[in-house]
């Protein structure tokens, strides 16, 4: 079955204290991870400066259904599709959905907003973002000890 990958950005429309919001995001990730296991989807969710950047990959129908759910979800605002392409392989094959919260240093270095505005809506930018998300995940264990990482292994 052909794989598709999708990357979108959105503004968080969550209400509450920082801890509340962290909890809500953790819930969203946990729920989507559970559903993704059933749907054969993998992906990652990066949140920085009030924005979500989420990558989803898997079968077309499951991606479409999940994305439609996101598009009906009022916890997001200004959902913007950055990339929707056929993919040869999964980038986030190990994670049914993983939450990346970069620490402040990382946020300064790579704000998602900057990343996406520089070469707006172009495949290069989307590719760069996806690569960044993956490297954030992989290097998490060693230098970026401050990043919190909640992951659900995809099996």
């Amino acid at each position, binding site marked *: 079955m052909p794989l*598709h990958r*999708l990357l979108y950005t959105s503004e968080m429309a969550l209400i509450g204290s920082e801890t509340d919001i962290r909890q809500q995001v953790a819930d969203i990730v946990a729920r989507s991870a559970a559903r993704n296991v059933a749907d054969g989807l993998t992906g990652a969710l990066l949140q920085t400066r009030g924005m979500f950047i989420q990558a989803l990959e898997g079968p*077309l129908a499951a*991606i*479409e259904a999940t*994305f*439609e759910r996101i*598009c*009906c*979800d*009022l916890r997001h*605002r*200004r*959902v913007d*599709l950055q990339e*929707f392409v056929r993919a040869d392989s999964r980038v986030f094959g190990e994670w049914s959905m993983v939450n990346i919260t970069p620490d402040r240093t990382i946020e300064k270095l790579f704000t998602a907003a900057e990343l996406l505005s520089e070469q707006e809506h172009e495949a290069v930018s989307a590719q760069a973002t996806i690569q960044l998300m993956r490297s954030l995940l992989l290097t998490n264990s060693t230098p970026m000890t401050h990043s919190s990482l909640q992951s659900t292994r995809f099996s």
Partner: protein
Amino acid sequence: MHQLYACITEQHDLRFVAVAAIICALGTYSTFAIGRQVFREQAWQERLAWWATGVVTTSVAIWATHFVAMLAYEPSLEIGFSISLTGASLLVAVLLVGSGAGLVVARPTLPGRIFGGGLIGLAIGAMHYTGMSAYFVQGTLHWDVRTVVVSVVIGIVLGSLSMVVGFHPRRTVRRLAPLLLLAAVCGTHFIGMDALTISFDPSVAIPGGSMNTTILSLLTANAALLILGVSLIALRLWRLNKLRHEAESQRLRDLADIAVEGLLICAGDTITGINHSLERVLCLPREELIGAPLQRLLPDLTAADIPLSHELDAILLDAAGERVPVRVIAQSIVIKAKPHTVVAVRDQRERLRSEAEMHRLAHHDTLTGLANRRRFNEALAERFATRHGEDAFALLVLDLDRFKSVNDTSGHGMGDALLCRVARRLERATHADDLVVRLGGDEFAILKGGGTKLGEIQALAERVIDLLGRPFLIDGHVLNIGASVGIALAPSDGTTPEHLMGSADLALYGAKEDGRGRYRVFEDGMNARIQARRSLEMDLRRAIARQEFTLHYQPQVDARTGAYDGAEALIRWHHPERGVVSPVDFIPLAEETGLIGPLGEWVLRTACTDALTWPAHLTVAVNLSPVQFRDARLATTIRGILAETGLPGSRLEVEITEGSLLQDEQRTLAILRELRTLGIRISMDDFGTGYSSLSYLRRFPFDKIKIDQSFVRQTPEDKDSAAIVRAIAMLGTSLGLKTTAEGVETQAQSEFITDEGCDQLQGYLISRPVPLEAITALFASSPLALTA
């Protein structure tokens, strides 16, 4: 045993023994026949009557058996009977049999039957020995006590056994009961007689008043037989009657059970029967309902309340206590000579369900499942009708921004899928008390529940715009549409549904003008605009009748010779109050309202008539609106006008814009071909603007291309415009079409354009559009060349 046998055969007159046996057999038979009848009856009065009959019959049988058997007894001595004691013995029998039978009836269990039967058995012994005390013989009676005890015990045991067997569920077993009772009676009697020894004693005198044995025997036997016979016949008749009633009831039940609708039979307010259909509806067996009050099924209703002439809506309680909507209608009938009410109970659930489904279908859009326009109109009317005083509410109308292009490029299937997704997102953006409607096509509306807090309404509009502005992924395609929203508030922006809807539409129009993906709340300025438009429309309708229109003509000249080729007819409206109204202002309105039809016809007729006054080689050019091409009779109309005015087709030129070609291509092509057959020439107007697809030039039968004046005006200075003019002129040459430059204002333009190879010039340089008299004068005065 031998002794007993000898007692019967040797000491008894066997003929009387036979009579006794017959009486006894009949008696015991009737005991059980009547006994079973007691159990068959339901009503206590009838049970009591049959119990009494049974008791009397049985007692009389036992008593008569004893008595007749006593008469058969021939001790070869003079005998007699005491009347009082004989009567008393019958009374003893009746009392004991009565209590025994009563016990059996009251407690038909095994112990009840054992004890009850025992009592009846005891009755035989007690009666026998009481009866024996009424027996006088010339001698002394000696009783063998052991045998007496045996006779009594035999009676009790067999009597008890007969009752046990007599009401056994198996019929073959039951048949033994009369025989057992017979054996009890006979056994007690003859063993009792066997216990008796009489020694002759002449000193014993038979008391006076004793009955004569022969007469007595005849009377007794006859009376006993009569009683037994009458009882049995009564029983038989009763049974027959009963059976007939039962058959009748059964037939009634069968008929009722065949009926599809539920039937309920009541005596007063007591249920006496229900049919299968009603059992099914209720999920209750009829046994549970018979005898119950009607109100258990139909609360708050008495039999008298149910009308005979028409159906009444009511509620039926089923087994689970569910309220089933039904309709009831009653009918009086007589069953067993008693008035009853038959209530027909019609289950309305299926009808209500299908009505609800029909209602849903009628009020919902089949594609998206949202409410449809009809439901919306009803809801809106209701909101207005139930509005009190200051109650206000908001109406949002929206349409999708790029839906038409999705529908055209991706097909209707994709368009439909998209509309369904849009519907779901709208439901997410709204609250449960908001009514989301698909008005048709890509138009939706939201009738907002709750009040008119501006913040809430704006938040709703923003949610709608946000959700619909998000991409749609359908079958691997990314579709970006978006929505514009117009908001109107009742009652401030409209006090009627139409008015409010009009205001919301205006606000929507405003939102679209602002740029798509926005919302606008209705403002009074919008209303002023619509008012102005309405009044213009009304004036336009009157203008044709009042002949407020005139035609002006702008001449066209041959680019090389400068000779007049003809003129283009241009409409002018002289409004009595507004003054001259520009065609830019009223032509779109005429197109929208359909007034372009009569207006266009007037222009054609007038232009043709006017052209007849010109030299015969000059043509007149008339503009046709795309809307006119929607009328398939356009060619026929023009043919009629030519015939009517007498202008040759070759002197008429029609100018059409790209808009006419964009619609139904086949129809437009057919009209143009027909016009060509009339000799009419066809020009492509405003070429260079719009799509200017070259394929149109190839597909449609044009004679001329008119280069749009926006290019002409900027020549020769503007290089791009010059290039376009040159390209169009070359295109015309290569396709064999004439080219006309419109809006030629300067000599320089004229020279440039002529040099580029244009065939015809039109513009202020030659003449502004002038009234008929002026153009006629122009054509007459200077028929020859204007210097090129």
